[in-house]
């Protein structure tokens, strides 16, 4: 029952990723800051993440401060260990981003709105005012000139309500008169009077000017030429990572508990990053990080089982405890990380976009004995449906493309492979609340 409940809870988390539209960049996060507010679970890595930032709100201003917070909890040994009865190796991290974003969005907005509209605004206002002040009254006085009382009464009953309409009242009135002038079911006097009024409206000079201004305005804005859009974001980032784990020190027959040592690792990281977006097509990203880390990723854990037998009177009992521990090769290390991303927005058909990300991760260790320097290269393609119902993608990665870890081993232990045999690839999909709602 407990297990079922855990599975259910985990599934709810897995399926309840809110706006979790991230781009995949293999290990390590992208250097590109994306507007995500995210609660999600990565089943493969057994991680639970929460992300929040002000990026959506910052879009309203051409320039301004941005901030973001990411919190992550993870079982180092994967989700399967939660159910297998072994101990969990917990990892948690908090990272913050604080930066400033610049763009030329104001200049472009001005080209399309204010700058162009100012030229026409004054003439439109004066035409609109003079038209509003006199035209309604002019039409009514034209109607009073109609000799037939029944025609006059009928047209007034139609025109007066039409003049009370809000949006485009004169255009709608002109259409009404046109229809009346063609309606053969009406009295001939009404049809003739409607024709006269329709011509009066059509020939009115101010009305003509307004109509031509509307055309000029619409096509003028459509044909505005403007500079290319760009956005530059500069940010600093800082993070703390904590891990708790056991180290196997070797069997101590006098006290088994002494065979294991509990270790706590706490590492800080910090640095800066730059994103440059241009023409809404390309984003170039760079991030530098100085990171205090360890070599746990290079080590694998073992499960140790200790069985104790005791005898009391004629009874024999055994107790068994399980320990998950790393071998006694644990070391701390410092890394200089240089992350590069080149993103291209690719339009597919009419409604879909692929975000292709070519990325390079350079991890330079300050102490090669404790942690080997390595470089990863990869390409990911994230699929965006415009309705936001689904996101997924594929990625291809060449981890440690210089095979630094292998080359560090003794020659007889090295397993050097051709690059194409070391390529890793994967498919990733994520769901959002809206997509789930549509499933039921």
């Amino acid at each position, binding site marked *: 029952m407990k297990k079922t409940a855990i599975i259910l809870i985990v599934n709810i988390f897995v399926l309840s990723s809110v706006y979790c539209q991230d781009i995949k960049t293999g290990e390590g996060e992208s250097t590109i800051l994306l507007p995500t507010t995210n609660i999600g679970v990565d089943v493969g890595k057994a991680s639970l993440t929460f992300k929040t930032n002000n990026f959506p709100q910052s879009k309203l201003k051409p320039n301004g401060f941005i901030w973001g917070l990411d919190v992550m909890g993870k079982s180092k040994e994967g989700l399967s260990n939660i159910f297998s009865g072994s101990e969990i190796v917990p990892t948690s991290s908090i990272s913050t981003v604080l930066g400033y974003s610049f763009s030329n*969005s104001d200049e*472009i907005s001005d080209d*399309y*709105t*204010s700058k162009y509209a100012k030229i026409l605004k004054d003439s439109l206002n004066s035409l609109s005012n003079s038209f509003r002040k006199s035209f309604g009254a002019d039409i009514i006085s034209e109607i009073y000139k109609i000799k037939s009382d029944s025609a006059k009464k009928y047209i007034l009953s139609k025109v007066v309500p039409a003049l009370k309409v809000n949006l485009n009242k004169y255009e709608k009135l002109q259409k009404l008169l046109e229809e009346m002038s063609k309606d053969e079911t009406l009295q001939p006097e009404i049809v003739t009077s409607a024709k006269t009024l329709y011509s009066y409206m059509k020939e009115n000079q101010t009305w003509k000017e307004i109509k031509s201004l509307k055309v000029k305005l*619409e096509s003028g804005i459509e044909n505005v030429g403007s500079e290319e859009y760009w956005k530059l974001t500069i940010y600093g980032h800082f993070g703390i990572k904590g891990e708790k784990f056991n180290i196997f020190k070797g069997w101590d027959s006098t006290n088994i508990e002494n065979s294991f040592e509990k270790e706590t690792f706490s590492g800080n990281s910090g640095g800066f990053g730059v994103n440059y977006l241009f023409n809404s097509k390309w984003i170039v990203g760079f991030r530098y990080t100085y990171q205090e880390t360890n070599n746990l990723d290079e080590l694998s854990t073992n499960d140790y089982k200790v069985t104790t037998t005791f005898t009391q009177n004629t009874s024999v009992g055994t107790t068994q405890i399980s320990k998950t521990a790393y071998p006694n090769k644990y070391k701390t290390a410092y890394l200089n990380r240089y992350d590069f991303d080149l993103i291209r*927005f690719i*339009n597919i058909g009419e409604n879909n*976009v692929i975000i292709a990300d070519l990325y390079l991760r350079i991890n330079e260790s300050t102490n090669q004995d404790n942690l080997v320097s390595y470089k990863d290269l990869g390409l990911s393609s994230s699929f965006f449906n*415009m309705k936001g119902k689904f996101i997924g993608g594929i990625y291809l990665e060449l981890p440690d493309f210089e095979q630094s870890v292998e080359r560090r081993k003794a020659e007889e232990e090295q397993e050097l492979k051709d690059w194409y045999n070391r390529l890793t690839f994967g498919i990733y999909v994520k769901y959002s609340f809206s997509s789930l709602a549509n499933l039921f």
Partner: protein
Amino acid sequence: MSKVKCEITYPSQLISKIGEFEINHKESNEKIKESGCLIVTNNNINVDIMLHVVGILFGPKNAKCYMDVYVDGEKVNSTPIESKFKKESGIQLFNWMA
């Protein structure tokens, strides 16, 4: 004078900036209702002659945005108004007139 409200939906991940929106060439109040939904309002618009909405969002070609326009609470467009992509500057443009 009428109250004009424009409700714009946009693909949040692909739109990197929201530019200015003008209703009959008057600056209007812009507010993000939720991620991917922008509300533009102006409560003092003369719509006797015409209603013209110009607005810009910054995003790639297929990051299409849609707009519904309300005058005094009444929706005045029959189908959602789709933005047009302007290649030279990389923007999604609304230039709609009624």
